[in-house]
């Protein structure tokens, strides 16, 4: 598999926050969901990829090229959609596109027109008059109109209603269809990720928790539940994190078979969804 995005030991120090040795890869033709709680460092990683902030250490390669040394070449192949994409607020959509189009070698006006039509956006409307959802749609139209091979999206669906989000998910699935493009999609709305991501990268408090294929994650992790009377050191040892309440306990484990064998019908084993894995890993209510 050809690697499109390669991040090695990436660190960034801020007063009060440290992105700590984050490493992960994204291969061609796949969608990576980049998840984590608010303030986990997702946006910091994306800003580092886009060279909007300076890294403290580490390496970022995009299409096999260093993202700083070959910034122009690399960014020519990247489409970006940010949560706060306002563009030139007093300009019409068309004027915005005119300012932006010149910088991309493969800009396609017909693609741009198609996306505007599809999103029912008026090219003469000013950007500041657009709703949040329309701004995201416009940013997406820009990002998809220059034949980008990597789409980087930072919380594009936050604050949007489910219909809008569903539409965006559909478009991204279309975009990825030819197998030559990839998407890094940062969000804390797990349902969007579950619909489309092939890989999940999870960071928390600036540290990488895992970067894994979604199917493997779903097959590997299990939630074990039982009464407090059977909760012993053995269970605690086999669980990554345990939550307790007055009715019993539940814990995330990688060794459910071993526990099932030992505790039989005294415990229940469930398949967790990505959100549950994230909550356990993030240490909420532990």
């Amino acid at each position, binding site marked *: 598999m050809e690697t499109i995005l390669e991040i090695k030991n990436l660190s960034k120090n801020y007063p009060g926050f440290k992105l700590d040795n984050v490493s992960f890869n994204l291969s061609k033709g796949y969608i990576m969901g980049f998840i984590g709680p608010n303030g986990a460092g997702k946006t910091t990683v994306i800003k580092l990829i886009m060279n909007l902030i300076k890294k403290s250490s580490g390496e970022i390669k995009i299409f096999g090229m260093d993202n700083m040394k070959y910034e122009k070449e690399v*960014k020519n192949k990247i489409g970006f959609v940010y949560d706060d994409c306002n563009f030139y607020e007093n300009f019409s959509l068309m004027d915005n596109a005119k*300012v932006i189009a010149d910088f991309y*070698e493969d800009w396609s006006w017909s693609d741009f027109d198609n996306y505007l039509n599809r999103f029912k956006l008026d090219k003469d409307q000013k950007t500041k008059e657009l709703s949040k959802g329309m701004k995201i749609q416009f940013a997406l139209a820009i990002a998809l109109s220059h034949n980008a091979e990597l789409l980087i999206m930072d919380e594009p669906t936050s604050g949007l209603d489910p219909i809008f989000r569903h539409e965006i998910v559909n478009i991204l699935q279309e975009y990825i269809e030819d197998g030559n493009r990839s998407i890094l999609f940062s969000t804390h709305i797990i349902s969007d990720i579950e619909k489309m991501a092939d890989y999940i990268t999870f960071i928390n408090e600036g540290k990488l928790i895992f970067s894994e294929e979604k199917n493997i994650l779903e097959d590997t992790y299990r939630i074990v539940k039982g009464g407090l009377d059977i909760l012993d050191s053995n269970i605690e040892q086999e669980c990554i994190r345990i939550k307790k309440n007055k009715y019993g306990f539940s814990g995330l484990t990688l060794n459910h078979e071993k526990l099932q064998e030992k505790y039989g019908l005294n415990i229940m084993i469930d398949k967790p969804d990505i959100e549950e894995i994230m909550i356990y890993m993030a240490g909420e209510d532990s």
Partner: protein
Amino acid sequence: MKKLVKRNLFLISKNFYLCIFYILTIVTMLFLKEDAFTFLVFFIPAMTSISASAIEKFDSKNYKITFSMPVIRNEFANTKAVTLLLLVGVNAAVSLITYIIAVLSGKVEILPFSLLVLGLSFSYLLSMLGGGLALTAGDKRPNYIYIILFIIIFDNMNIPSFVLGNDILIYLISVIFLAIGRTVYVIAKENILRICLEMEF
């Protein structure tokens, strides 16, 4: 760089209504006051500052977008400096044409060549100061401030009597203005570059 210059000119053109209003104000002043020297000295820097602040007004809100595109920060900073020179050139041309029209229509007297050189060199210095400041400090002043300042200065400016008639002194002062203007340009260019390279979003 060509693409960036084109973009900067496009951004200025989006503030064109303001430029037209300003040109009309200044030209009206020229015809009312009949003082070509003061006109030359202040038209170019005022127009340059307004245009530079128009670019900065757009850029300051959009750096994150701009630097997410295939734009190199070094190139971006250099282009801003080149745009500053370009603005001075264009505005100098416009002011000279206006001056010639005013002379031909008999509204102002023709300036001695030495005073023309002095006026242009002083305007170069002021343009670098005003334009450089707008591009480096992210000019937040409302544009009408330039118009008010211009009217006040226009109405009160006089060349010291010991300078008038002394061509050697006038040329010497002109060279000093040009040298200081050039220094200000270099400092402004370095500052724009430093700001662009250090900027984080």
